[in-house]
């Protein structure tokens, strides 16, 4: 078996995690730029982070036969100061030339503020200008439904094909709108704030397996880098076909990500 974990923050994981993921069938990961658990004090901090994502992590993953790709942006949590955010956004274009960068992400909203929305719109424009795929973070908990709608409205106001945009961290109250509006949907298997493998499997049963994937979003918080193989097991335990299991954990991410000429296995 082989699978792709299309959203995982490997900078926060140990090398042992790469090894266990490879042993579990992981052949590729994509890592969006995100909040590191603390606010960086300067744009230079992001420059170093982008170097880590584009230079160091691909080499560490390759030790275990895993391909590592990345997405770049300023995350919504650190985008509340527009002047600072613009300084960070200005260094992204030079990194878009790197051959493992798939697009802009994970952009989105955190507390659904006007400042976050301004920077979201500017990064959507950046993705449009450079013809990039987009990976979207939606807010957690009580802010998710409102934030997801605001984000979809901002995306729909651009000229980016919704088929080139994946909206992540969907749950039962947002998945239908995301799919109905033509976007791809990501389900994040995360112990406290998002989905269990059981609920993710329920969503696939109810909403189908088109334009949807699963990821672990493994990061510095309580999270599980083996969440995707655990969801595969949950699906097979229920009697779903291997073809369906492979579709949502391998074929679908492959289809979406292959819209970038940079993605290959």
């Amino acid at each position, binding site marked *: 078996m082989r699978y792709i974990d299309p959203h995982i923050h490997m900078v926060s994981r140990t090398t042992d995690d790469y090894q266990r993921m490879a042993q579990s069938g992981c052949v590729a990961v994509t890592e969006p730029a995100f909040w590191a658990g603390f606010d960086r004090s300067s744009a230079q901090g992001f420059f170093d982070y982008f170097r880590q994502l584009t230079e160091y992590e691909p080499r560490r993953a390759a030790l275990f036969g895993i391909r590592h790709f990345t997405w770049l942006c300023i995350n919504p949590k650190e985008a509340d100061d527009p002047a600072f955010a613009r300084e960070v956004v200005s260094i992204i274009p030079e990194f878009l030339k790197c051959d493992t960068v798939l697009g802009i992400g994970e952009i989105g909203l955190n507390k659904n*503020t*006007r400042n976050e929305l301004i920077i979201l719109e500017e990064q959507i424009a950046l993705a449009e200008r450079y013809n990039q795929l987009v990976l979207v973070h939606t807010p957690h908990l009580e802010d998710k439904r*409102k934030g997801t709608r605001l984000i979809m409205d901002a995306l729909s106001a651009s000229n980016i094909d919704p088929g080139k945009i994946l909206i992540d961290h969907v749950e039962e109250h947002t998945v*239908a709108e995301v799919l109905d509006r033509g976007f791809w949907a990501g389900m994040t298997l995360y112990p406290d704030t998002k989905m269990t493998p059981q609920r993710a499997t329920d969503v696939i049963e*109810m909403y189908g397996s088109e334009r949807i994937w699963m990821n672990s979003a493994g990061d510095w918080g309580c999270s599980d880098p083996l969440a995707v193989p655990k969801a595969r097991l949950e699906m097979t335990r*229920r009697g779903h076909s291997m073809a369906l299991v492979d579709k949502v954990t391998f074929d679908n991410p492959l289809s979406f990500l292959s819209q970038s000429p940079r993605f290959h296995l």
Partner: protein
Amino acid sequence: MTQVNATCPMTREQVVNQYFLEHRAKLLDIAAFLDRLDRTQGPGSADFRETAMKEAVRILIDGQPQRAKRVLDILSDSTTELPQSAHGMKGASGAVRPVAASTGGAK
């Protein structure tokens, strides 16, 4: 577009056999959490999260479909205003905080 009928490949008996113990344990966790609230020391009235949870629990036994979605809807912000900045705002708490509330709050 939501298909709710006959979308799980298992029989009712198989689902109960496979998941009952797991969810029995989660049910007991909720029961013990509510008991723990009753056993707390000092003053304090139900905060918005407790109230929201009790409202959500009613959905579990109303016999209607889409329970997970409806529970999430109860726990979702329905306002349309956008604050300018997140500066000074509390982190997400998992339920909708009343506008005037100034105490409590998870990180």
